[in-house]
């Protein structure tokens, strides 16, 4: 299934609906769309469609269904867990040409956008109104709001404000059966179950978002960004829970260890302290007195943990420079090694010190270099295992070390993913966090949206859990969804 020759009838029908220029199916196009930003290499792309409207998305879904072919929605393809990787020749429905900001209501703090709007473009559009869209993943220059909804994306500034789910009021969705549903609403308590909340983070397995009402956040009155340099990683990690424990929830607390600080400094010359074992980038915002008081608390807690250097950005330009180093860290690591595997787990903040130690031990044991740049404030680890893909056998070591980091995070009371999602990458780990009963309940949620497994099948839930899926379906009275 999925080879060019098998697809002739499917392609003909898609072309009939969208036109030749918006249905791609050459081997080059398929190669371009069979992967996301992860190392996952098992994808097999069917025809690739570029709809421009909800009606065209419906058409794509219906055509795929008639040809008994699954479909997968795709935004910018920046995902890191394989969520948008097509399996078994799935029809790829790319939403990047649905990229209009439909309306902005500055008074009621809501904007309607199409799924292909790029995250940073939205905040740039909002800047003259002194508003922004709070989730700011590191890929925000490329990733789309539709992708953010699918992954329930985070970012540095989700510490105080919450991840994407907290910023989505309503989603128009093309369901896997081709029906269109409006989930959630602009009113505070839409009638019925919170299907909006269930849909966000569904990794494309529950349908395709075609219009999204996002909550807009007013820019803070004041912002202070601090750079704290520590001689010991432990002290930096302990400062994080110390700040929260002292009753301050900063807008962001990011941590970078020495290796990645050096790589970022070489790249952007932000003036990061190169003698520090770890740095914290702490941002507090709000009204003036609140901000001043919070800066004092952060400094006090940092000094209690032997901070070596404290730098307070004096103006917006310096603040942006400090952030530029953080935000370009992933690009900067290419100077160290050609490849990296980026992990994403969460641990309770108070366990950061010990889990960080374990991460270094695990990497050393597998003879791998590790760099850490992560959302320390919410315990969201992002260890980068560095390697050179030309070295024979190195990927096995990378995967083994990754599995141990995941296990260490769970053993510390953590979870598998803080913002990248499960996709294909972490399916096999799901049973480490959830019982079969837990997974059966998740399978029910999925089955309610997609009883026949048409939308991005083979993702998120471990393959065994699909049995529970089917068993649940058999208990449904006849005719329930006719």
């Amino acid at each position: 299934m999925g080879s060019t020759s098998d697809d002739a009838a499917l392609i003909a029908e898609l072309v009939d609906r969208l036109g030749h220029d918006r249905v791609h199916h050459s081997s080059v196009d398929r190669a371009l769309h069979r992967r996301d930003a992860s190392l996952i290499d098992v994808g097999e792309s069917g025809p690739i469609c570029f709809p421009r409207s909800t009606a065209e998305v419906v058409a794509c879904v219906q055509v795929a269904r008639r040809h008994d072919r699954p479909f997968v929605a795709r935004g910018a393809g920046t995902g890191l867990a394989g969520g948008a990787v097509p399996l078994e020749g799935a029809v790829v429905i790319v939403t990047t040409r649905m990229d209009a900001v439909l309306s902005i209501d500055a008074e009621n703090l809501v904007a309607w956008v199409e799924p292909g709007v790029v995250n940073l473009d939205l905040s740039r559009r909002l800047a003259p109104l002194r508003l922004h869209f709070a989730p700011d993943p590191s890929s925000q220059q490329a990733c789309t709001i539709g992708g953010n909804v699918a992954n329930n994306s985070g970012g540095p500034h989700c510490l105080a404000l919450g991840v994407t789910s907290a910023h989505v009021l309503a989603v128009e969705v093309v369901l896997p059966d081709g029906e269109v549903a409006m989930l959630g609403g602009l009113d505070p308590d839409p009638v019925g179950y919170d299907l909006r909340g269930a849909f966000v983070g569904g990794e494309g397995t529950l349908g395709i978002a075609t219009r999204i009402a996002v909550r807009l956040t007013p820019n803070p009155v004041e912002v202070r960004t601090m750079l704290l340099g520590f001689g010991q990683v432990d002290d930096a990690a302990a400062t994080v829970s110390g700040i929260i424990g002292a009753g301050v929830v900063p807008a962001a607390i990011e941590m970078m260890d020495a290796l990645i600080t050096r790589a970022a400094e070489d790249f952007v010359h932000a003036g990061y302290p190169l003698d520090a074992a770890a740095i914290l980038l702490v941002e507090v915002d709000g009204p003036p007195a609140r901000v001043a008081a919070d800066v004092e608390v952060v400094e006090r807690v940092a000094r209690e943990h032997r901070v070596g250097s404290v730098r307070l950005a004096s103006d917006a330009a310096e603040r942006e420079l400090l952030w530029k180093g953080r935000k370009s860290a992933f690009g900067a690591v290419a100077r160290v090694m050609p490849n990296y595997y980026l992990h994403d787990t969460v641990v309770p903040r108070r366990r950061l010190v010990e889990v960080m130690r374990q991460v270094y031990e695990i990497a050393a044991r597998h003879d791998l270099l590790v760099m850490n740049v992560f959302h320390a404030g919410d315990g969201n680890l992002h260890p980068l295992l560095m390697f050179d893909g030309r070295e024979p056998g190195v990927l096995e070591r990378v995967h083994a070390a990754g599995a141990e980091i995941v296990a260490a995070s769970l053993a510390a009371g953590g979870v598998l993913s803080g913002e990248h999602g499960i996709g294909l990458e972490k399916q096999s780990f799901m049973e480490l966090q959830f019982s079969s009963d837990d997974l059966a309940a998740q399978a029910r949620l999925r089955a309610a949206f997609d009883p026949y497994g048409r939308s991005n099948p083979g993702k998120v839930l471990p393959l065994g859990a699909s049995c529970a899926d089917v068993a649940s379906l058999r208990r449904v009275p006849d005719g329930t969804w006719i």
Partner: protein
Amino acid sequence: MDAPGPRPFRAALHELAAEVGDQGPVAMVGGRTAWDVGGSVADDVREVRAPEGIVSIEPAEMTVRVGAGTPAAELDAALADSGQEVVIGGRKGGTVGGALAVGWSSIRRPAVGPARDCLLEAVIVGADGRLVRAGGPTVKNVTGYDLCRLLAGSLGTLGFIGEVLLRTRPRPELSAWMRGPWEPGVEPRLVVRPAAHLWDGTRSWLLLEGHPDDVERSMGTLQAEGGQEVDAPPPLPPHRWSLDPSTLGALLHDDHGGFVAEVGVGTVHRDLPQPVREVGPAVRTLHQRMTALFDPSGRLNPGRDVLHR
């Protein structure tokens, strides 16, 4: 290092699961303060209650684990010692689990967000009498499907909430209610964004929270615009309406009587209940499938329907 694996449940939850069982209609009872929301459960249905009591408070984690049967007031008092709070809606005398199952948010929603967003993890008893853990133990988590959002406001129809892990927040150092002749949309420029803005068609009540200096500065701004400090917001009529906040101006001209509206949110408190809201056919189908999959025999809280709340 401990071997990772699904975490065990404490005994009180196993007892609840056994009590719920897998046969016959059963109702979860909290404080009975919102017992009529979404329809009533028949009197002869067997009743169960969730475990009471606080399991653990982690101030540096900003989380609290609590039995769902714990009175909300007890949770609030316990968190006060560490200068934190969990802000969920619900009437006086209600339980934590009841407030989450009903899903009402506090009038402080502009500052603290909707109630559903504090639910990090829930242990529920399903219709098959088995314990299920939804969500996860950390403040950030996208592992698997977001059952917690589905459970908040579900009126117990998908599973009974036995225990929850909630996100806490710092208590504001100072809170003050200001009353004045302001209208929505003409709210003065304040350094503190109001934690609540109530409006009855002629007057507004603004709740200011935060650092004392910021709050006092904003109080000064409001006093200069005809405002005065008051002890409390106006009494809220008993029924809650959920309206698009951009449409609140129309309340002045409808014929459903007086109101106290939450400006910027859209919750409107009135003497009469909101007429039943229609949903589209696709959303209705999703609801039917959801209840059919989670509770095929309709044994959990029979008589209550989220589409009729």
